[in-house]
């Protein structure tokens, strides 16, 4: 059994993933992730020296596109699903600005 994930680790990962977790959710997450990681742990005991990693299962390279323009979306369509369309753009709270 690997050690339980610490709360600080779960908090850190949740911040990286931009997921707001309540204290209770963090506790549950720590338990569940620990169980899954414990199950996964077995593969770390395999002898994998000299084995190349497989990130693609197909044997294809390049697949390049010619530098030819296509039609872009009409702006109304680009913005059609935007939660906060502003002046032809996508409105967001300014980074670095604090709401307080």
């Amino acid at each position, binding site marked *: 059994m690997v050690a339980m*994930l610490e709360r600080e*680790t*779960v908090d*850190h*990962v*949740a*911040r*990286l*993933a*931009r*997921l*707001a*977790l309540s204290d209770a959710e963090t506790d549950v*997450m720590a338990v*569940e*992730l620990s*169980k*899954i*990681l414990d*199950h*996964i742990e*077995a*593969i*770390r005991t*395999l002898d*994998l020296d000299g*084995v*190349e*990693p*497989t*990130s*693609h*299962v*197909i044997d*294809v390279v390049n*697949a390049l*596109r010619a530098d030819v323009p296509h039609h872009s*979306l009409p702006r109304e*369509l*680009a913005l*059609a*699903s*935007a*939660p*906060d369309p502003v002046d032809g753009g*996508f409105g*967001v*709270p*300014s*980074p*670095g*600005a*604090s*709401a*307080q």
Partner: protein
Amino acid sequence: MSDALLNLTAAAAAAAIRAGELDPAELFELYRERAAADSLNAFSWLCDGAPDAGFDRSTPLAGVPLGVKDLFCTAGIPTQSGSRILEGYRPPYTATVVERLYAAGATLLGKTHQDEFAMGSSNENCAFGPVLNPWDRTRVPGGSSGGSAAAVAAGLVPWALGTDTGGSIRQPASFCGIVGLKPTYGSCSRYGMIAFASSLDQAGPLTRDVSDSALLFSHMVGQDANDSTSLAFPEPVRMPARRELSGVRLGVPEELLSADSGIDQGVRESFEQTLSLARGLGAVVSPCRLPHAPHALSAYYIVAPAEASANLARFDGVRYGLRVPGNGDLESMYSATRAAGFGPEVKRRIMLGTYALSSGYYDAYYGTALRVRTRIAQDFQRAFEQFDFIVTPTAPGTAFELGAKSSDPLAMYLNDFCTVPMSLAGIPAISIPAGLSEGLPVGFQLAGPAFSENRLLDAAFALEQAIGFDGSPARAGGRA
């Protein structure tokens, strides 16, 4: 009369329409009425009438209705991938595979419910309520393509599109008593499929029989300039016709059928009966080794969440979908939006994947998983030197009761034990109904080398004829 029409397979219906014996509008309306009365929660969206463009009898699919898993983008039509974060989202474009099927004459009947972002094996992770199994409404239809599987099994649509990342076509096909094909990775374009795990996701058909599977698949395949990981299928997809299996070598992987693999007794018995039928058709059945297959699940539950953690980063409340302001600042908007928009399983996998990729853990988890993936692919390559196909039960059990596993993520993940190795290796696999165990369907899985779909469909067809499964839950007494 209408039941007779609705009992036609898609291939038979298309042939009848092309021969002028069946009105495609009539068939479409019959299905639409039946789907509108759907009480399984199979559909996330249903068309409100025949398409404006009408039906083209001369096309190969001749206007036969099609169900499409929610995660395929359909221009102007809700595409939510089972998630609250995309509620009401209508994309401006259509997925390549769907476009190809439209071009071949398929008509969209409706979009089908699924586990959120295809993460799940029961459809209970759908933000819009669980789909019910037509064989027993207290049970799950499997997942993640549960809506498609349930709709096809219940006769609400002749056939449907699903996607398979670690078993998401095959396992619901098994639970619902229909045929599900996960094609070779790269044979069908992923463009327009809302991604779960990019190196594993693959579109495929859910159908009443193997012939329909081949027909639908034949109009899905092909290289797509919009998907760099797609390939040209090396030969035309043929309609299966084989009725015996003489000399076909079937390998039964010891590692996946060991005593501790968690396979139910009923499933084992059904599997053995199918092997006997195969021998009767001339197949040679022997044990084979896939030494790393038992580790596939672990590798999968690193690779898939890792890719998913990046694929789902785009759901940030900026360009589309849900936005929750939080405290009003940017960071809080991100975290609040994603906390409100994603369900528990999606959050769990994002957390797992983020952790596996994070500084200090990459080699231990992701790097290791990619090496295990190499080993698993090599295991299959070696096995295919001696065997034409690898065969296993599709799932360790039959459809389980709603809620039975939802509190234990790991128990849920174990459903993918027999399907995940093929996903990691990128090879094709098909699940066909092998019979019933305690009134519930059991699936039989065949897997072959990359691009062996024609041979695989042929073998599945021969077995299907020998098994003689009655695919209707109504006749089997399952429909309440």
